């Protein structure tokens, strides 16, 4: 159980970092441009909100298979097999949680007035400098919200992991899967412990994040 908890935390942390790394430029692009391409990308990013996770999991399972092009490219590049690995879980989680990170950031970026960016430019700030010195501080609370949503959503993920994870303890068996496993085995004592543990963990995480984002919101 400790193994499943550790794995869940690791998956959520790694996924959140990737989500921020990929989601931030994507959200900036979507917020600042308006074209057919942005609408298309916006639609694709939002897909996990409406699709059953098993659908996404199914296609990922096929894509990650050793005989698929993507699976082979991955193996050639990293030397590891992608199917049923921790990396596969991270990719699945990032895709699945992307809208939860991109959408709040996109909304926040739209709120940053062009007028302030212009003022910053006339004071000598280049594009990256403007981003760091104006956009980032103005959107700080949205970054915290986006990160906490991405993190919590990864912790609560089940369908995608079930499809692509393969239920390997220590490698792909996260808390939600372990719980499912115990129930299947009619081990209700362990299931209770896991379920209650997840509830408690989620409560504490969300509480801490909301508290800190509240503090930021007041300060900025």
């Amino acid at each position, binding site marked *: 159980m400790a193994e499943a908890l550790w794995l869940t935390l690791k998956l959520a942390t790694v996924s959140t970092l990737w989500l921020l790394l990929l989601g931030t430029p994507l959200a900036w692009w979507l917020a600042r441009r308006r074209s057919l391409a942005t609408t298309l990308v916006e639609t694709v990013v939002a897909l996990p909100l409406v699709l059953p996770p098993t659908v996404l999991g199914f296609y990922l399972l096929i894509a990650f298979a050793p005989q698929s092009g993507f699976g082979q490219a991955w193996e050639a590049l990293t030397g590891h097999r992608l199917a049923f690995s921790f990396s596969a879980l991270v990719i699945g989680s990032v895709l699945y949680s992307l809208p939860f990170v991109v959408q709040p950031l996109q909304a926040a970026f739209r709120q940053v007035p062009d*007028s*302030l960016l*212009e*003022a*910053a*430019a*006339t*004071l*000598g*700030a*280049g594009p990256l*400098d403007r981003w760091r*010195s*104006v956009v980032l*501080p*103005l959107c700080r609370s949205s970054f915290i919200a986006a990160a906490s949503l991405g993190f919590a959503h990864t912790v609560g993920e089940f369908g995608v992991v079930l499809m692509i994870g393969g239920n390997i303890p220590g490698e792909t068996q996260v808390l939600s899967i372990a719980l499912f496993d115990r129930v299947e085995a009619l081990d209700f004592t362990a299931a209770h412990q896991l379920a209650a543990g997840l509830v408690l963990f989620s409560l504490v995480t969300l509480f801490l994040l909301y508290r800190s984002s509240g503090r930021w919101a007041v300060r*900025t």
Partner: protein
Amino acid sequence: MSEIALRLSLSRGEFSLAVDTRLPGNGVTGIYGASGSGKTSLLSCIAGLLRGEPGTHIQVNGDLLDNEDLCLPPQDRGVAYVFQDARLFPHLDVAGNLDYALRRRRRAGPDTGQVSEWLGLQDLLTRHSAELSRGQQQRVAIARALLSGPRLVLMDEPLANIDTAGRRELLARLARLRRELDVPMIYVSHDMAELAELADHLLVLNHGQVTSEGPLLELSSRLELALSHEEQAAAVVRAEIAEHDPAYGLTRLDFEAQELWVNQLAMPAGTPLRLRLPARDISLCRERPQHTSILNLLATRVTDIESSGASRVLVRLAVGEQFLLARITRKSVDALALRVGESLYAQVKSVALLNDGRHD
């Protein structure tokens, strides 16, 4: 090469802007025009926030900012911009806003202490922009612009959203800045009184075209300009303090070897001044009035008479080498049988003192 060379054109649907001119490379150039005349677009092009059409050429005192081969982005132009809405960074306090400019500047310029004193910010440094009045915000924005070490300062109606008391205060501070700071400034406004206070040179924009341009003192009394036909029309003239009369609390000014009396001033005799004489506050008499409460009476000669609307006439009067404007009714013109070249007395009902101590 002390000049600002501007050649640029821009069109947006119905609107088009075309400017090709050379402005003085020092002092304040006022850009005057109604809203929609292209004043803000012109500033945006100079700052690099808007891109002019091919053929654009912008050069400030020898430094090329924009032409066919090179178009510097705003951050590399060294052109500071004071916007109508102060645009302070809401996540920084006043000191943080000033520091933002200071840390990015690449040219020498005044320090924070100096600029804070000029704009009266000493007590505001730890405040956040949301806690400041509009006038205070604009003072911070001006200070921030100066701290960026600009080669040129652009101001877009910085007094537009400020209450009367705040305007008067800020105007006095700007007048002081123009004396102490050796950086050329382009100041946009639709208020001639404001420009008369600050500008040395004037450029009039109408529907994106330059309709007239020249030294402000010269332009202010020219009849053919739309400027003289507006409600607020006024001549701007030079005078000098002659002597003080403490018994009456008045100061006598020497204006083209004649006298003008104003409320007693604190400056010593010999100080040059700039005065604004509104056209509607000047009345004309054929003979010297004997019994009048009006103190200021000038012997003048009519140089031009021009109709200004249905019932009113604008008369241009020479006093020595300078000119006044008088707006009177057509009925009065006929009653007095006014002709060009005649000598008349002008009664001056109000004299507005513009900022002190400048040399034109």
